[in-house]
Every structure is written in C-alpha cells, then in structure tokens.
C-alpha cells in the first residue's frame, strides 16, 4: 500500500490465542495472525462463526490477552490505550442500561471519564444529532426499536471521542432493511469523524459495501487467509450493491475462504 510510510494505527503481529474448552482441552481460536491497520481506515474482519474474529477484536481492545504475539495501538500497548479511553466499542447487543434514559446511557462513559457537566451535555447532543435520535433523548431503551437501540450504542461509543471504533457484529440481530440503512449511517459518521474502524461481520456483502480492506478469516484454527482490497469509489451508495464490480468483489471474497 502506498500510505505505508506512516506508523500503523493498529499493528497485530503473529497473534495466537488458545482457550481451554469446558473439558480443559486446548482450543486454538487464532493462529499466527498479523495485520497492520492505518489511521482512518475502515477494516472488516470477515468470517464464519468460530473463526476468531470477535476474539481478535477483543485482543486489540485489551478485553482479552493473547497467548502469544504482540499488539500495538497508536504505538502503545492495548491496555494503555484502553485506560486512556481511546476505544469506542459497539457490541452485537446494544448493551444499553434499561434503567437509564438514552441521554443518560450516552452519559455513562463520560461520568467515568470525569468529563465536566457542560461538556457532557454538549457532547451528548452532538452524538444524538449524528445518529438521528435527537427527539428520543429522554426515552428509555425499552421504548425503542432494535435499530434505534443500536444507534444509541453507536452514539455512546462516539461520545467518548475515541480514536478507534470497534464494532462487533453490530447489525447481525437486525433485519435486512434496517441493517442496510445503518450501513449507510455508519459510513456517513465515519466520513464525518474520520475514525479508524474495525468492523466484525459474517456478512460478505456488508463487508464489501463498507470496507477499504477486508481481512478474511477461516476457522479451525482461526487464521487470516486473505486480505482483499475493496477499490469501489467513495462515498458508497446503495446503487453500488447492484453493480458487476460489487458482485465480482463478493465472489472474490467468497473464494478466499479456506476449509469451510
């Protein structure tokens, strides 16, 4: 890649992860994975269940410690970066606190970061605007649809003004229509905020539509089998999903899986 002159924002070197299963037998979740991710890139980790894509995301964000290998984020260890609150994580479930209103849910990380009250309020309004939920700030999560709840999850992740946005299959529980709408919303937010995004998904066309590059992971053991460059022009539009270029990329990604 031409911009490789920079130090990568996220560097994963020879990372392996071994869990033990319920009987105590070792299970290799990731084997010898290496990826460099540049600042501002949109990267997908794509693969079937059991390929270790969520494990890799958790290793990068210091929710898990790898068995071997090295990860650096912004030139530091993942733990240092986590404690500096540089990671915004969006989970598969929105993980909203049902006893807090939308506004107070977004406020949660800001309270822990000891952000001043006035700034909390302005940041909350800003991210609510960004995800299009301005008039739902005082609603409770139980009153919102699944898609709206996930938007709140995204808003909460953005409120801490992270350098890196990590998304773990954020739309897999949503219907196709809502998912495609949120795909466009996330791309819109990404373009406006210029974050580095690590996006975990098992949906091939979603990863093609969203990403600059796709890291194709194959299971048993979880390993990186290909990195596919997506050279579709930006901004991506829904019409692109029907083009032959798009179909060719989907086909290329599909053929790069091994041993499924």
């Amino acid at each position, binding site marked *: 890649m031409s911009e490789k002159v920079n130090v990568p924002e996220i560097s994963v070197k020879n990372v392996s992860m071994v869990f033990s299963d319920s009987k105590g037998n070792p299970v290799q979740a990731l084997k010898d994975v290496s990826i460099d991710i540049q600042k501002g890139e949109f990267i997908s980790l794509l693969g079937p269940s059991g390929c270790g894509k969520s494990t890799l995301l958790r290793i990068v964000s210091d929710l898990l410690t790898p068995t071997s290998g090295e990860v650096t984020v912004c030139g530091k260890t993942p733990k240092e970066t986590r404690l500096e609150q540089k990671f915004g*994580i969006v989970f598969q479930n929105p993980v909203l*606190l049902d006893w807090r209103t939308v506004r107070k849910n977004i406020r949660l990380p800001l309270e*822990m970061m000891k952000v001043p009250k006035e700034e909390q309020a302005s940041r909350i309004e800003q991210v609510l605007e960004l995800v299009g939920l301005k008039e739902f700030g005082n609603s409770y999560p139980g*009153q919102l649809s699944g898609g709206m709840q996930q938007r709140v999850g995204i808003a909460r992740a953005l409120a801490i003004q992270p350098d890196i946005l990590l998304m773990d299959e954020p739309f897999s529980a949503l219907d196709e229509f809502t998912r495609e709408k949120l795909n466009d919303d996330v791309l819109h937010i990404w373009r406006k905020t210029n974050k580095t995004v690590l996006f975990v998904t098992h949906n091939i066309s979603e990863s093609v539509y969203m990403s600059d590059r796709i890291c194709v992971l194959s299971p048993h053991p979880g390993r990186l089998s290909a990195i596919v460059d997506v050279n579709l022009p930006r901004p991506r539009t829904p019409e692109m999903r029907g083009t032959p270029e798009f179909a060719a990329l989907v086909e290329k990604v599909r053929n790069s899986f091994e041993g499924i």
Partner: protein
Amino acid sequence: MLNKIKSSKGIVTAVWVLGLMVIWEICAFIVGATQRTPINVLPHLYQIFGSFFDPKPITGSGDTIATLVFSSAAETLSRALIGFVIGMLLGYALALFMNLSHIVEKIAFPYLMIIQMIPILGMAPIVLSITGDISSARIVIAAILTFYPVSTNTLAGFKSVGRERHELMKSYGANKFQLYIKMLIPSAMSYFFTGLKISAPMAITASILVDTLQGGNGLGCMLSQSLKGSMTRFVFWDIVIFSAVIGVLSFYLMGVIERAISPSKRKAKKLNNGKD
C-alpha cells in the same frame, strides 16, 4: 384507551375476589346444613365481617374484636417489619460479599441452604429460648426468613449481568466501585425486589407463628386463645382474614416501591399499554 385497560384489570381482580366469596359462601351453606357448630368449621362471610365491627366488648378491659385485632397486629407486625428490614440489609450485604469473593460464597452458601431447610417450627423455640423474649424472637425469626430469599435472589441478579456488560465497563477502564454502583447494583434491582416480594409475607407469617409459642399480646397469641375457646371463635376468623389481607398487601407494597424507584419500569409499562 389507557383507562379502559386499567379498569379492565380492576374488573379481573373484582371478578376474582367475588368468585372466591361465592365459593366460600356455598361451602358455608353446606357446612351450616351438616355441622352442629358451623362457626368452628366455616362461618358465613357476613358473620365474620359483622363480628369485626361488632361494638360489643369481648374482654374484661373493654376491647372489641376490632381494637383487639389492631392492637395485637401493631405488636406483631412492628416486630415483623424490624426483622424484615434487618434481614434485608444483612441479606443484601452477604450477596455483595459473596459476589465480591468466591471464597466467601463457597463458605456461606451451604449455611444459607441449611438455615433454609430447618423448619421454622423447629427453629422458633430455640430462638425463643436463646433470646428469652418474645419480641426479640419475632424479630430474629422474621430476619432469618427474609435473609435467604433476599440474599440468593440478589446474588443471582449480580451473576445474571452478561459478559458484554462487563466488557463495556472494562473498556471504559471502570474500577470495582464504579462497576457495582453503575452496573451491577442497578442490574440486580429487580432480582432484589423479587426476593423482597417472596420474603415480606413470610416475615409476617413467621412472626405470627412465633406468637403462638408464648402468651402475650400478639396476633398469633390471640389466634391460639380463640382456638382454645377462651375467646369467641370469631377472633380467630377475623385474624385469619386480616393476616391474609396484610400478607397480600405486603407483597403488592414491594411492587409499588419498586416502581416508585425505577422510572424506566413505569414508562415502559405505559408504552405497552398504549400499544395494546
């Protein structure tokens, strides 16, 4: 729309209560036709309620049934309440410690199970002989019975908090204190109230039971005196109905308190009603 659903819920309750009264009355008629002393088996409801409001004194000191029931209820239920609060606080504290430390959980949990397995009838005389005082015995028994459901339910609440919620807090670099204050304690709130709903009627029942062991002024004491024939049998019936009502109310009261302190429950409920 909202009012319609609210009133229809009221109708369901009314039908329930009415049905129960009809069955009682049918049984009372059958008993009245076959037994020589129907009041010992099943009197009519109007007789029971009538006796409660009967202004004629039944004791030498001039108490009517109503004043007798209220004064003994104050005696017993105030102790039940004190025991309930103590049991609740201790139960919650133990749940916290068990969740904080695996060793505490391993040591404490078997004791919890054993305390729960000893029948209250067996435990009450022991507690009474240790404390030597009926009021303290009431408090201790009510506390013991409250302790277990509160403790186990709250612990289950802490443990039900999913992996992603823990990861979310970890990703913010939250410390233990923040984890508990902002995530675990509010998450476990509905479990805690489930424990309270189970234990509130139990605490009341238990302290009435302790009364029957010794003479005094409590509800259970009057109950057994009435059964032994030293007072009219209607004292017994009135106390049974009164205790049942108080037990049910104590259960509902917990629900009312829960909704009062968690606005999200009220709003979610309103929304659902609006949709229906």
